[in-house]
């Protein structure tokens, strides 16, 4: 049981990083990206290749993954500078589609649809180490960084951009720089999560980085509460632990187990959004209709 809970906690920590970093651009800067799984994938492939070709050092894998995902975040930042709202959603959707195709086709780097197998277990300076403590440390660092950035002038700039971009620009805020930095930070964090995921599962392929996963990450943020520090983490815990908990229901017949679980999860999410539209820890005054 401990091993099972440890695996679940590792996944919660990894997806918690993804939700927290997505929340940084979605909740604070108002950038509605549905391409976060792209940077998760970039980090996963980078981390996997480092482990396969060089050394499975978890810190090295995370640094390289963050650098690559953060560097390539310009692919997301550039459209974010020109369009917003539903137009940016469409732009990020395009990026997601291109990335999935590239992940499937760049076989020397990604293994294609077959993916990369046999990724060695992680080490830290040559000593074997579990992914869980590293993932928890990375999650704590990212939450700390998010809290510090959100409280400072950078966070206020992002919030101003989210609420009224033109007004923020008129007040002399460097909107382009703020958006680019925010996207860079979020994507680098997603890259770290990707590297940890690759080392944890010892296998990566494109099916873990599709739009379904981008939507799942967005659901984690929205259900927990956008623009809050702990909301995305709580959303992650809920969306990952609910299916796991339902798997323990003893009365589900073997051929119906998946369908019943999906119906329960879907109903729970719908009811949650009806009664807590701003998310579990979001501002209760937000999200509800006023009519």
């Amino acid at each position, binding site marked *: 049981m401990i091993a099972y809970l440890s695996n679940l906690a590792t996944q919660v920590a990894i997806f918690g990083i993804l939700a927290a970093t997505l929340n940084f651009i979605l909740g604070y800067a108002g950038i509605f990206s549905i391409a976060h799984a792209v940077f998760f994938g970039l980090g996963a492939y980078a981390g996997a290749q480092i482990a396969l070709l060089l050394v499975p050092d978890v810190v090295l894998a995370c640094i390289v993954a963050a650098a690559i995902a953060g560097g390539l975040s310009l692919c997301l930042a550039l459209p974010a500078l020109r369009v917003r709202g539903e137009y940016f959603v469409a732009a990020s959707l395009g990026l997601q589609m291109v990335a999935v195709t590239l992940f499937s086709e760049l076989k020397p780097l990604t293994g294609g*649809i077959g993916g990369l197998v046999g990724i060695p277990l992680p080490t830290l300076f040559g000593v074997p180490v579990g992914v869980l403590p590293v993932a928890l440390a990375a999650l704590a660092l990212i939450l700390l960084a998010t809290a510090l950035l959100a409280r400072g002038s950078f966070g206020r700039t992002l919030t101003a951009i989210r609420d009224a971009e033109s007004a923020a620009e008129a007040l002399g805020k460097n909107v382009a720089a703020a958006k680019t930095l925010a996207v860079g930070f979020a994507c680098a964090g997603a890259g770290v999560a990707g590297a940890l995921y690759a080392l944890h599962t010892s296998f990566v392929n494109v099916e873990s980085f599709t739009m379904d996963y981008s939507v799942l990450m967005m659901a984690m943020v929205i259900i927990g509460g956008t623009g809050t520090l702990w909301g995305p983490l709580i959303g992650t815990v809920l969306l*990952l632990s609910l299916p796991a908990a339902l798997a323990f229901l003893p009365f589900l017949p073997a051929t119906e*187990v998946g369908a019943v679980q999906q119906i329960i999860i879907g109903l729970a999410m719908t009811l949650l959004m009806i009664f807590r539209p701003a998310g579990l820890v979001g501002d209760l005054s937000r999200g509800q209709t006023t009519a």
Partner: protein
Amino acid sequence: MNDAPTIRRRGLVAAGLSLPFIRSAAAQQASGEPYVMGTLFPMSGPNAEYGEAFTRGAQLALSHIAADNMLRRPIRLQAEDSQALPQPSVVGMNKLVNVDRAVWVLVSWTASSKAVAPIGDRAKVIMVNGGAVGPDLSGLSPYFWNVIALAHLEVPVLVDYLTRHRNVKRMALVYVDDPLGDAILGQLRTELPKAGGQLVGSFSVPRAAQQFGPVAARVRQTRPDAVYIASFGAQQSQIIKGLRDNGVTQILCSYSAFSIDSVRQLPEAVGALYTTQKLDFESGDPITRRFAADFRARYNQTPVAYHANYYNAAYLFGLLARQLEQANEEVNGESLRQAMLRTRTFDLVGGRGTFDDQGNLMTQMQVNEIKGAGRTEIVQG
């Protein structure tokens, strides 16, 4: 000092909360408790049709094992939904291995299988695949076995039949660009010239594609005698419809993925050919006849290769565990593997099969033709 009582209280609460699980794990190891056989199939989403078919095969095998009193302990089937995706598969496999203490897990789907193979390998749990045919599944782990012929073993059989009996000289391929599709492309490139044919065109399609009009037009331009479809799941039916709707009237053919109902009941698929391991329900083989009769009686459905594969995958556990019980050996992944290596050859549904060194079950193959309304006919056994 002041924190000590709090810590103790928290410790007691934590211990209390974990007690049911600790008891559960320990109890399962006690003698007389059921063996746990896990299934990790897609039970929701677009591939749930496969998961249901796989489960039915396994359930019938367990009922036969129980009816024959093969084992001293009963078997409990524990189903987990893989959604055919790596991440849910990892969660499900961890539960099966660490909570349910499964010693035998039936798996499917290439990506799902690859994701769980390291977990099973570390825990020394036997994983048996009867659905995925990607050639890269061979040798994933000493504990990962395949009871289905992998794709590269199916193509030569079909090429031989098509060139000899259907006078096919020119073949086109529509394939998903994954390890399975790549393997079939490679096999067609090497096998067709040997049989006097040629591959006149190969057209890769994205896994999520649903419209095949343009592909059909390009296929027609190559003037093939037959079109090989290397896809799986719901996409297969869409490709078949897309080709037929756009005037491709030539023979359609594929590997064992055409076994599913949604393809066999498709009017446009009538006349299509596909390979499976040998599975003649009217043969004199008593195991095959019993399987077919009981399957029809229980599910009111004619069984197909996937039902038989997972029947075999589950029944194999009964055969191996019986050996171990008779020798008073503990039934675990390692002892089951050793028993398999000692025995190698088993009488299963479809006939006698022999495992190779990498855990792949080698059986005879057959070519089937879809006759419509879910009926198929063996055209080469």
